[in-house]
């Protein structure tokens, strides 16, 4: 089947645009999404195509963006609310954790909240401490909301579509570093290409070690796998894609084959994705475990501005390779 390389930003834009064309109740709001065509250019051209009713610039009011999305969704619309970057979603954490994730539960199923929060995530380029977060696990902490974090264009396309069509609230993060990155999308892609919420994916097969990752971590894992292959080590790369729900079945299947695991993430190490996966593994796969489970994450420090020490804090393929070598 013919395929073409598409930047992740374009894949997300296409999915969002098609969903807006399909369903009149889907609308976007956020800072600079309309007149300025989106800080990350995901909503480029949307104002012209869909008009101000459906493409709404907001003030710099994250609390209200987060909460108004909940109200609009409860009332029957399907908001796609954008946080310019996920760092600013912290200001809306109450609306997300206490209302988006809970109104259905505390009214015992009376309401549904079919919203999507989109947020650009990740760090690098000397963005400095307060603008250098990849805090997906924080949001995945709360039952009542799902969290999706794609690692390539096709996944982003299918995952965003599902997130919009599903009746549950979804926080959807987009790695800033992956926005410009091209990856193949089939030419005859079906507009109903949907990736089920919570379904992971094997991005590379291998029998020697399982690398578990999501979003940008998948890039590092795949690079590491290529480096390891030169030394005859075949790594299997499991892209969980969703932090909630977690496709642990896929991890177990891989682990039963490899008996070794390194978990890779862009986020901080304490109370993390890595901790969660490792805890599940040791509980369910104890008998298959041939070595300690390793984690590769950012250093446990706020991110600095200065370039060299910023790079020092960032996980990368080399650190993944080192971790694998420690448990072979």
């Amino acid at each position, binding site marked *: 089947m013919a395929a073409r390389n598409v930047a992740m930003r374009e894949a997300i834009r296409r999915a969002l645009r098609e969903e807006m064309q399909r369903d009149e109740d889907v609308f976007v709001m956020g*800072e*600079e999404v309309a*007149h*300025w065509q989106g*800080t990350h250019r995901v909503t480029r051209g949307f104002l012209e195509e869909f008009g101000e009713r459906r493409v709404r*610039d907001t*003030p*710099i*009011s*994250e*609390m*209200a963006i987060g909460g108004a999305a909940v109200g609009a969704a409860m009332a029957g619309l399907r908001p796609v609310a954008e946080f310019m970057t996920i*760092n*600013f979603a912290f*200001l809306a954490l109450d609306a997300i954790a206490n209302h988006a994730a809970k109104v259905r539960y505390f009214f015992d199923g009376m309401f549904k909240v079919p919203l999507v929060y989109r947020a650009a995530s990740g760090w690098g*380029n*000397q*963005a*400095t*401490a*307060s*603008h250098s977060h990849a805090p997906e696990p924080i949001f995945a902490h709360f039952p009542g909301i799902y969290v999706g974090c794609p690692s390539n264009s096709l996944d982003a396309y299918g995952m965003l579509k599902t997130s919009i069509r599903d009746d549950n609230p979804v926080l959807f993060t987009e790695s800033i570093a992956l926005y410009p990155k091209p990856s193949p999308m089939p030419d005859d892609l079906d507009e109903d290409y949907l990736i089920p919420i919570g379904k992971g994916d094997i991005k590379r097969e291998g029998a020697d070690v399982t690398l578990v990752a999501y979003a940008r971590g998948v890039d590092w894992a795949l690079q590491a796998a290529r480096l390891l292959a030169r030394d005859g080590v075949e790594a299997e790369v499991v892209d969980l894609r969703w932090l909630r729900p977690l496709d642990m079945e896929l991890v177990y299947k891989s682990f039963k084959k490899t008996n070794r695991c390194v978990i890779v993430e862009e986020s901080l190490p*304490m109370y993390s994705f890595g901790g969660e996966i490792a805890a599940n593994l040791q509980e369910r796969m104890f008998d298959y475990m041939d070595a300690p489970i390793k984690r590769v994450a950012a*250093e*446990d*420090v*706020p991110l*600095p*501005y*200065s*370039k*060299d*020490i910023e790079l*020092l*804090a960032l996980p990368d393929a080399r650190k993944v390779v080192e971790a694998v070598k420690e448990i072979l």
Partner: protein
Amino acid sequence: MASPSKEMLLDWYRQMALIREFEETCHRLYEEKRITGVYLHLYSGHEASGVGSMAALRKSDHVITAYRDHGIALILGMDPKAVMAEMMGKKTGSSGGKGGSMHLASKDHNFWGGYAIVGGHLPLAAGIALEARYRGKDDVTMTYVGDGATNNGYFHESLNMSAIWDLPVVWIIENNGYGMGTEVERASGQIELHRKAEAYGIKSFGRVDAQNALEVYAVALKAVAYAREKGPAVIEHVTYRYRGHGVSDKQYDARDDMSAELKEWVEKREPIKILRDCIKSKYGDVGDILARHEADAERIVAESVAFAEASEMPSTYEDLMRNTYVASELVYKTERSVGAGID
């Protein structure tokens, strides 16, 4: 009302020339990739706003602002070398290279820093002013905030708190017409931004043409006196940013209506020219003094660039980890403790 002396006006000129030279140099260095990163928000065009208002402060007063902080730092007298080194992420930078352009600060100057989360510094300002009230001091906290930030919850909560506790804050709203690409009219229901503060019972000193340092100063004097004696005050500075939102947002400069608008501000309301004309009309020919200040600015900034470029980058694991926590004997730590930081 005390009008500024000749010496003061000449000194303002010195400050404004220095800021402009510093900012335009930063802009050039960024283009040349000698300053890197994604955020660099310049104060060009805003000079009179900071210079005129901070002239109303005394040394023990406090200052805090957002990420557009280079000009504020220089006005307070921070060493341009340390500021430029911070832009380049050097060890000799004012924040050791950890903070960069958006996080300048100087304890010695009562400069509590620049902050990158919109509105995030406003409650800090209330807290800094609370310390003064709490301890019975009458030092004022001068707080700069953008027009866009007035739509954020932080702004409203902080202003209200300052009102009920009579905190000695002067809230200066630097209304440059835009928050990134959004015009004030599209972002705020109340477009006379100082009136938002009035709604909380804060004394408003109205709108000021902040391209004119003398007007800024006259109003700031009153507001500072009020805050020192009674409680919070607000001033709205009407100003303009010459270099778009920041270097990573070039698209803002590219918009036709915006470049026409910029041209008009530069031609009609250029703050350095307004001050120069005023000095000349009052004191006749002071051209060589002004020229000397301009030459000094060039020299000082060139020296700061040379200093910064010759300085070392932080590069070790210790450099990275240092100062996450205060080293404390009250913390139980062993070799195996996780997450305690390093001393």
